[in-house]
C-alpha cells in the first residue's frame, strides 16, 4: 500500500496548482463558516453573560402614571421573582454645539436591581446629575463633567453628566419614531428617581415595570396577570424580551450571522465540490492505463476507491486547515466589529473547536461528494478495458458547421474547440457553470455596496426630501408651522405627525409609529423599491409590505389601530396600499385620517423643512432657543449617521465577502483553464511538433476557454441575481430590507475580475505550454 500513497503524493504534487486552487475555495468556505459560527456563538455567549451579570429583566410592561402602591400587586403575581418600577419620559437636551432628544429613565440604587447600569466612566448620578448612554457620548463627544441643559415638560433645568453607562435593555437605542439608531440625536439619560419624577411631574408614580421571573415560569402567563393589573393605567401590554426592540434587533443580527454561516459556505462548498469532481474525473481518465495495471497487479476496488477518495480528502483537509486558521482570525475581526457596534461591555470570543470541526467536516463531506462520481468510475473500470489504449474519441461536425458555408469560415482550431465542446456537452456545461459561479459569487459579494447606496438614496433622498426634520416636544397646532416658515433660511415647511400605535389584526399585532403627512406633501414621500411614489391616501394606511405580511393583511383589509399617546384613541383603518420600502416597518396616513382617529384638533408633532443650506447655522441657533422644538435632524447628518452605523458593519462584511469572491473566482477560473490544458496537452504537443509556435498552440487552448467564458458571463449574471436574492432573503429583518440592486459598476467588476482571472490563468497556460515536454507527451498512449 505504501506504493499507492507515494503515487498519491506524486499525483498531488504534479497537480499542485489545481489542488491549491481548489483548496483555496475550500478554505474560503471553511473560513466563512467557522468564522461566522464562532462569531455568532461568541455574540450569543457575550450577550447572555451580559444579561446575566446585569440581571436583564424577563418581562417588560409600560403604562402611564401608575401609583406606586400598585407595585405591590405586581410583585405579588405568582412567578414574579423580582420587580423594579421606573419613571420614564422624553425630553431634549442642548449643550454648547448640539441638541438631541433623550429618554430619561430613573435608575435605582447601585444602578438598579434589574437591567443594572454598567458604568464605563464616572459615578452613578446624584442630585442634578445624569448618566448618558455610551453610544450617545461617543457620537456627541459629551462625557463626565460636561454640563447640559435638559428640557422636559416645558421646563428647563441644568444637568451635569456624572457618568457614561451601558444598559442591556438598550444595546440598540432607537429614537422615538425613528427607523434606525441615531446616536448623534438620540440618547439615554439615567437619573436618580426623584429627579425624573420631578422633571416629569409624576411624584410617586411609575410608568415602566420590569420583572425577573422565577425559573421555569413562562413570560406569557405572567404577562396576562400584569396586563390585568395595569389595564386601568393605560398598560400597553407586557411583553418578553422577544418584543423588546433592542433584544429583537440583536436577535435579528445574530440570525443573519447564522444565515451567513450557512448560505455563503454552502455556495462556496458547492463550487469546491464541483471543482473536485472535474479535477478528479480528469485524473481518473488520464490514469486509465495505470488503473488497469494496478488492477492487474491485484489491487482491489476498495484500495483503488480509497486512493482516489484520499486525493479529494487531502485537498479538502489542506483547504480546511487553511480555512480554520483564516476563520479564527475572521471571527476575531467580526467579533471586534460587532463589539464596537453594540458596545458590549465584554466579548467572549474564543477559538471554537466545535465550529472548526464542523466546518472542516462539511468541507470534507462536500469534497468527497464531488469525488464520488470519479471514484465510482475508477472502481468500476475493468482491468482488461483499462489496459487497452483508449479508442480515439468519436467526433462529429457540429450543427453549426453543417449550416451551408459555415464550415469554411471556421478555422481548424475553432472547429477543434467547437467539436470538443459538442462531444462532451455535460462537461462543457459544467466547465461553463464553474466560471459562471465565479461571476455569481462576485456579484453576490459586490452588490451589497449598490444595495446600501440604493437603500440610502431611497430612504434619504426620494422618501425624505426635507433638508431638516423638526420634532416638537409635544403636539402643536398646525398653525404653528407659520412661525417656522418665518425663520431664517426656511424655504418651505410641512407638518408631520408621529403617532406611536399598535396595529392589530386578529391575533397578530405590531407596534409601529404611524407617520402622518399632508396629502400633497413635497418634502416627504412614500417610495417603494421600484421608485414609484405611493400617494398619501385620503383614507386608511400605506404600510410596508413586510408589516402587512407580519399582520397577515392585504390592501383592502381593515386593521385595528390603537394610538398610544394622549387619550389612547382607537379605531379601524383600511390598508390602502402596501409599499416595498427598505428601512423599518412603516405606516403612513394623512394628517386628516390621524386627526379623525385621535378625535383631536389639527395637531402636528413635527415639521419637514426645506432650507437654504447657507442658513443652517443661524437656523440651528433659532430652533435651539424654542422649547417646543425637541430635536432637529439634518438630512446630511442622518445619512452620515446611517453610514457610520448600519452601513458600516454591512459594508465591512461585504468587503470581506468580495475578498473571498475574488479568491474563489481565481480558483475556479484557474481550475477551469488548467483542466482544459491537461485534457488537451497531448493535442497541444502534437501541434507544437507539427510546427505550431507556442502562441499558436496557446490560441487553440484559449479558444475553448474563451467560448466557455462567453457562455459563462450571462449565465453567471443570472446566477448572481439568484444568489443575491438568496443572501438578501436570509439577511432581511424588521430593521431593514436589502433590495437586490446591482449597479452597472458591479456587473463590470464581476465580469472584469472573471475575465482578468481567465486572462491571467491563460497567461499561465502559456508557461505550461512552454514546459510541455514534447517528446514525452507523445511517447505513449497514456
Amino acid at each position, binding site marked *: 500500500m505504501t506504493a499507492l500513497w507515494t503515487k498519491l503524493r506524486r499525483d498531488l504534487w504534479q497537480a499542485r496548482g489545481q489542488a491549491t486552487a481548489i483548496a483555496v475555495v475550500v478554505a474560503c468556505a471553511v473560513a466563512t463558516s467557522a468564522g461566522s459560527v464562532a462569531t455568532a456563538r461568541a455574540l450569543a455567549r457575550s450577550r447572555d453573560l451580559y444579561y446575566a451579570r446585569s440581571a436583564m429583566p424577563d418581562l417588560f410592561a409600560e403604562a402611564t402614571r401608575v401609583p406606586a402602591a400598585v407595585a405591590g400587586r405586581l410583585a405579588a403575581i405568582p412567578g414574579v421573582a423580582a420587580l423594579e418600577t421606573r419613571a420614564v419620559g422624553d425630553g431634549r437636551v442642548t449643550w454648547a454645539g448640539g441638541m438631541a432628544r433623550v429618554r430619561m429613565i430613573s435608575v435605582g440604587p447601585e444602578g438598579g436591581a434589574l437591567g443594572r447600569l454598567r458604568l464605563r466612566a464616572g459615578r452613578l448620578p446624584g442630585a442634578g446629575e445624569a448618566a448618558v448612554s455610551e453610544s450617545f457620548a461617543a457620537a456627541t463627544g459629551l462625557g463626565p463633567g460636561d454640563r447640559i441643559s435638559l428640557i422636559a415638560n416645558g421646563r428647563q433645568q441644568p444637568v451635569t453628566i456624572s457618568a457614561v453607562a451601558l444598559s442591556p435593555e438598550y444595546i440598540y437605542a432607537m429614537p422615538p419614531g425613528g427607523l434606525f439608531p441615531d446616536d448623534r440625536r438620540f440618547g439615554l439619560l439615567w437619573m436618580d428617581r426623584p429627579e425624573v419624577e420631578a422633571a416629569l411631574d409624576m411624584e410617586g408614580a411609575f410608568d415602566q415595570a420590569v420583572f425577573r421571573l422565577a425559573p421555569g415560569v413562562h413570560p406569557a402567563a405572567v404577562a396576562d396577570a400584569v396586563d390585568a393589573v395595569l389595564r386601568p393605567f393605560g398598560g400597553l401590554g407586557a411583553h418578553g424580551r422577544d418584543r423588546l426592540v433592542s433584544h429583537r434587533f440583536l436577535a435579528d443580527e445574530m440570525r443573519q450571522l447564522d444565515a451567513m454561516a450557512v448560505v455563503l459556505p454552502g455556495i462556496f462548498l458547492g463550487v469546491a465540490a464541483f471543482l473536485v469532481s472535474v479535477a478528479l474525473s480528469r485524473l481518473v481518465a488520464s490514469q486509465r492505463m495505470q488503473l488497469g495495471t494496478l488492477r492487474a497487479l491485484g489491487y482491489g476496488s476498495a484500495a483503488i476507491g480509497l486512493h482516489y477518495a484520499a486525493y479529494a480528502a487531502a485537498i479538502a483537509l489542506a483547504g480546511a486547515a487553511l480555512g480554520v486558521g483564516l476563520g479564527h482570525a475572521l471571527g476575531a475581526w467580526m467579533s471586534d466589529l460587532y463589539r464596537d457596534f453594540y458596545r458590549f461591555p465584554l466579548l467572549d470570543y474564543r477559538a471554537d473547536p466545535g465550529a472548526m470541526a464542523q466546518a472542516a467536516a462539511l468541507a470534507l463531506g462536500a469534497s468527497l461528494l464531488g469525488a464520488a462520481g470519479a471514484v465510482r468510475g475508477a472502481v468500476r473500470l475493468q482491468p482488461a478495458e483499462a489496459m487497452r489504449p483508449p*479508442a*480515439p474519441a468519436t467526433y462529429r461536425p457540429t450543427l453549426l458547421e453543417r449550416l451551408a458555408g459555415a464550415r469554411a469560415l471556421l478555422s*481548424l482550431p475553432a*472547429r477543434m474547440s467547437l467539436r470538443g465542446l459538442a462531444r462532451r456537452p455535460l462537461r462543457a456545461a459544467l466547465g461553463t457553470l464553474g466560471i459562471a459561479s465565479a461571476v455569481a459569487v462576485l456579484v453576490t459579494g459586490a452588490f451589497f455596496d449598490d444595495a446600501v447606496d440604493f437603500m440610502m438614496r431611497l430612504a434619504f433622498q426620494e422618501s425624505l426630501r426635507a433638508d431638516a426634520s423638526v420634532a416638537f416636544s409635544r403636539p402643536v397646532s398646525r398653525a404653528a408651522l407659520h412661525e417656522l416658515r418665518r425663520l431664517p433660511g426656511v424655504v418651505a415647511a410641512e407638518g408631520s405627525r408621529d403617532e406611536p400605535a399598535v396595529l392589530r389584526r386578529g391575533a397578530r399585532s405590531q407596534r409601529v409609529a404611524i407617520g402622518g403627512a399632508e396629502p400633497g406633501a413635497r418634502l416627504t414621500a412614500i417610495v417603494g423599491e421600484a421608485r414609484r411614489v405611493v400617494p398619501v391616501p385620503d383614507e386608511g394606511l400605506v404600510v410596508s409590505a413586510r408589516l402587512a405580511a407580519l399582520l397577515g393583511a392585504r390592501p383592502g383589509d381593515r386593521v385595528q389601530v390603537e394610538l398610544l399617546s394622549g387619550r389612547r384613541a382607537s379605531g379601524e383603518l383600511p390598508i390602502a396600499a402596501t409599499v416595498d420600502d427598505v428601512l423599518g416597518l412603516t405606516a403612513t396616513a394623512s394628517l386628516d385620517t390621524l386627526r379623525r382617529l385621535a378625535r383631536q384638533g389639527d395637531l402636528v408633532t413635527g415639521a419637514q423643512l426645506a432650507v437654504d443650506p447657507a442658513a443652517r447655522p443661524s437656523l440651528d441657533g433659532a430652533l435651539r432657543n424654542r422649547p417646543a422644538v425637541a430635536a432637529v435632524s439634518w438630512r446630511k447628518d442622518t445619512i452620515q449617521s446611517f453610514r457610520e452605523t448600519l452601513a458600516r458593519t454591512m459594508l465591512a462584511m461585504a468587503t470581506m465577502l468580495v475578498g473571498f469572491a475574488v479568491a474563489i473566482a481565481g480558483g475556479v477560473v484557474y481550475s477551469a483553464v488548467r483542466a482544459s490544458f491537461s485534457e488537451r496537452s497531448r493535442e497541444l504537443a502534437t*501541434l507544437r511538433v507539427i*510546427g505550431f509556435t507556442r502562441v499558436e498552440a496557446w490560441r487553440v487552448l484559449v479558444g475553448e476557454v474563451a467560448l466557455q467564458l462567453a457562455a459563462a458571463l450571462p449565465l453567471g449574471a443570472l446566477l448572481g441575481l439568484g444568489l443575491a436574492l438568496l443572501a438578501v432573503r436570509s439577511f432581511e429583518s424588521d430593521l431593514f430590507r436589502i433590495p437586490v440592486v446591482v449597479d452597472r459598476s458591479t456587473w463590470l467588476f464581476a465580469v472584469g475580475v472573471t475575465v482578468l482571472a481567465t486572462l491571467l490563468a491563460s497567461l499561465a497556460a502559456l508557461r505550461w505550454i512552454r514546459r510541455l515536454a514534447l517528446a514525452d507527451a*507523445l511517447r505513449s498512449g497514456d
Partner: protein
Amino acid sequence: MFEARGLEKVYRMGEVDVVALRGVDLDILEGELVVVLGPSGSGKSTLLNVLGGLDAPTAGRVRWRDHDLSRADDRLLTRYRRDHVGFVFQFYNLVPSLTARENVALAAEIARDPMDPAEALALVDLSGRLDHFPSQLSGGEQQRVAIARAVVKRPDVLLCDEPTGALDVATGRLVLSALAGVNRDLGTTALLITHNAAIAAMADRVLHVHDGGIARVVVNQRRAAPEELAW
C-alpha cells in the same frame, strides 16, 4: 544533410543522471532512407528527437544543412520543425476532433509551400477517406493520415519513431510502402526507428544504436521494396 559531432544527452532525474546519448557522431545524406535499430532504452528516440528539434542535446553539436540545431532557441527550432521536418510516431497522435483532411490541413496551413491536403492523402492511398474522423479509421489508416500530415508540407526530413510499432504485418507494410514512396518520389530524407530487424532491408543504411552510441553502420547494396519484407 545532418552532421552530429560528440552528441550527448543526459537526463537529470533528481540525484541520478541518465545518459541517453554518449558522444554520437553521425552524418546523414540528402535523400537517404536510414533505419535505426537498437535495444529498448538505447537512445534511439532521443537521437531522433534531437535531430527533429524536439529536444536539445546536453553537449556536442548537431547541424542540419546550415542550421545549428544545438544552439537554436525555441523560436528557431519551431521554425525548423514547421518548415523542414515531418514527424510520424508510434501512436499516430492525430487530433481526434479533426477529420483526416483537416488533420493534414493543420500542418498545411502553417507551411510555406504545402501540397493540397487531398493530394497528400492520395499519396498514402487514402483518397476515399478524406472526411473520416480518426475514430472511423483503422490503426494503419490513422498512421497513413499521420504520414500524409507529415509530408503535406513537403518536408526535407521525415522522422519516424516506430511507425509500425502498433500495427500488424500487412498494415505495417502498407505504411512502410507509403513512407518509401514519399522518400522515393519526393526525395525526402527519411529516418525510421524500428525494433524490427527485417525492416532494415528497405534502408540505404542501417544504424545500430547501443547504449547511447552508434555501435555499427551497415550499408545495404540494394534497397528491398517493403512488399518483399518478411517478418
